[in-house]
C-alpha cells in the first residue's frame, strides 16, 4: 500500500517554526516503520526551503498564491485541497496547530470527508497505520486516536517531540500553483493589533497588581522554549482567592504545553492543573508547604513568591544572557 506522510510546515518571518522540524523528525521515524516517504509542504509562496534538510526522501512543496489575500479558511482550504490532490497517493497529513491551521484543517476534513485528530502528544505506528495519543478532559485523561479515513489528519501539540540536529538529506522542491478566486474569501483580516501584554510587576513592593483588565491574557509565557532570544516575561497568576487576577491557565484559559512552567503562588486546584498538565518540568513556588501543587511539581520552593520572584528573575536573566 503506498502511503506517505505530509507535514504542513508553517513559517514566520522567513523561518520555519520549530514545530515544523519537530514534526518532520517524527514523521521521518514513523515513515521508516511504515516504509513510506515524508514530504513537507508550506502554504505560502515566500517560504524559504527548510534550513535543516532531513534524510529519507523528503520533498518540499511550495504553494504559489495568485492573490495575497489574508489567510481565511476558504482560500487556504483550496490550497489544502491542492495539497492533497497534488499528491498522487493518499497521504497522512500532519500539520502543526496554530490559528490558521486550526481554522483550515477542520474545514478541509469536512470538505473531503476525512478524520481529524487534534492536539496529539504522541504518534506511533500500529498495524500499518499511524495512531495518535492525546489528552482529553483538559489533560485529566488520555486516549488513543484511530482514524479510518485516507488520508488521515493529525495535529500535534508543540514541544511534543524533540528536534534532532540537521540531517544530511536533500529535498526536492516542487511548486504547486493554486488558483484562488475572489469569492473564495468570505472574511478578511482587516487589521492586526498588538494585544497589550502586561507583565506582572515582581520587582516592586507589594502587593503586585496587574495593569490590565481582568479576563484578558496576562502576558506571555515566553521563557519556556529553548529559544535563545527568549525574553523573560513572568506570567504570575495568583490563585483566585487572593483577588489579584483571574487565572488564565486552566479549564477556560489557554492550554499550556511548554517545556518549563513556573507556577508562582498557585495552589494547584484542579482547574489550574488542567492547563499545565503536560508541561515537561513544573516549578512551584508557594508559601503553603501543603499546597497540592507541590505534588505535581518537579521542583518546589516553599517561600513567598514576592521574595523568590525577583531572585529567580535575576538568575534567569543571568542564565539566558
Amino acid at each position: 500500500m503506498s502511503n506517505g506522510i505530509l507535514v504542513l510546515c508553517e513559517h514566520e518571518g522567513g523561518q520555519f517554526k520549530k514545530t515544523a522540524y519537530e514534526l518532520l523528525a517524527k514523521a521521518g521515524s514513523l515513515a521508516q516503520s511504515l516504509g513510506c516517504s515524508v514530504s513537507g509542504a508550506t502554504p505560502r509562496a515566500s517560504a524559504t526551503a527548510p534550513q535543516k534538510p532531513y534524510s529519507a526522501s523528503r520533498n518540499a512543496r511550495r504553494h504559489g498564491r495568485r492573490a495575497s489575500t489574508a489567510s481565511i479558511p476558504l482560500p487556504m482550504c483550496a490550497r489544502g485541497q491542492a495539497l492533497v490532490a497534488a499528491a498522487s497517493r493518499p497521504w497522512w497529513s500532519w500539520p502543526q496547530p496554530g490559528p490558521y491551521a486550526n481554522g483550515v484543517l477542520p474545514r478541509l476534513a469536512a470538505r473531503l470527508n476525512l478524520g481529524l485528530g487534534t492536539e496529539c502528544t504522541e504518534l506511533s505506528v500500529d498495524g500499518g497505520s499511524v495512531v495518535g495519543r492525546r489528552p482529553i478532559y483538559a489533560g485529566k485523561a488520555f486516549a488513543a486516536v484511530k482514524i479510518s479515513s485516507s488520508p488521515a489528519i493529525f495535529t500535534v501539540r508543540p514541544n511534543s517531540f524533540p528536534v534532532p540536529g540537521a540531517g544530511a538529506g536533500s529535498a526536492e522542491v516542487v511548486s504547486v500553483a493554486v488558483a484562488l478566486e475572489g469569492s473564495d474569501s468570505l472574511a478578511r483580516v482587516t487589521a492586526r493589533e498588538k494585544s497589550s501584554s502586561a507583565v506582572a510587576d515582581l520587582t516592586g513592593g507589594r502587593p503586585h497588581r496587574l495593569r490590565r483588565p481582568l479576563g484578558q491574557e496576562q502576558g506571555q509565557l515566553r521563557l519556556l522554549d529553548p529559544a535563545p532570544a527568549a525574553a523573560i516575561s513572568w506570567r504570575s497568576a495568583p490563585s483566585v482567592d487572593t483577588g489579584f487576577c483571574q487565572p488564565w491557565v486552566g479549564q477556560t484559559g489557554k492550554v499550556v504545553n511548554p517545556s518549563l512552567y513556573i507556577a508562582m503562588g498557585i495552589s494547584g486546584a484542579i482547574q489550574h492543573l488542567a492547563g499545565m498538565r503536560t508541561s515537561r518540568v513544573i516549578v512551584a513556588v508557594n508559601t503553603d508547604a501543603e499546597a497540592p501543587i507541590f505534588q505535581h511539581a518537579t521542583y518546589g520552593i516553599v517561600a513567598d513568591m514576592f521574595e523568590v520572584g525577583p531572585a529567580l528573575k535575576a538568575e534567569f536573566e543571568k542564565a539566558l544572557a
Partner: protein
Amino acid sequence: MKIGVCLKQVPASDSRIKINADGSGVDLSDVKWEINPYDEFALEAGLRLLDSKAASAVIVYSVGGADADQRIKDALARGASDAVRIDDAALAGADSLGIARALAAAAKADGCDVILAGKQAIDTDNAQVPAMIAETLGWAQVLVVDQLELSDTGFKAWRDAGSGSRDIVEGALPVVISTDKGLNEPRYASLRGIMQAKRKSYPVKSLADLGLSADQAGGAGAKVKLAGFSLPPARPAGRILQGDAASTAAELVRLLRDEAKVL
C-alpha cells in the same frame, strides 16, 4: 439576525475523571453535568443581541439524550427564545464531523444566519465542530473570538493571532463564530426565567428529521474513534529546595539548566 447557539452538556470542569475497567471510555456514572463553559460565552453573546433587539431570536441547539434537557432549560431560563434537541441512537459514536453536520442541518432548517458556539468542548477538547459547521454550510467563520460586533450588515471579530497580536476579521453574514473566554460575562438565569423555562417545550429531532443518514452523521460514518483510555502517567515525586530566596533561586536555575535541561 436569527442566531443559533450550539450547546454541549459536559462533565463539570472540576470533575474527577475515572476510566472504566476495560479502558474503553470514561466512567461517567458519578459525574455532575454542566453547560460547556465556552458555550456559555456564545449563549451570552446571543442573548445580548436579543436584548438589544439586534437579533430576532436565539435558538439553542444541542445533541444529546433526555439528560441534556436540564442544560437546555438553563439556557432557556437565561433568555434563549427556543431550543432544539437532536437525539438519535445512530448518533452514538459520532465524531466531530457527524455532530457538526447534525447541528448545521438543524440551524439551517430554522433559518439561522449566525451560529455561535464555544471554541471547544472541555471533555473532548477537539475544537473542530464550529469550523466543520461553517464548511458544511459554506459560511464564513472566525474562531476563538474574544471580542465581537455583529449586526445584519456584517461582523467584526477579534481573535488571537499568536506572537502577541490579534487579528481583526470582518465580513458579511452568514457566519459561524467560535467563542473564547473573555468575550463576555455570562449571566445567571433569573428566578422568573427559570419558572418560565419550566413550562417551555421544544422539539427533539432525529437524524431522519434533519435529512441525514447514519453514514453522514452517525457513529456508522465516524472516521475518528477514541480507544485505549488511560489516566495520565504519574509524575515522579518532586523535590523541594531548601534555603533562602537567593540560594534557592540560584539552585533552581542550576537544576533547570543541568539536570532538567530545559534552559
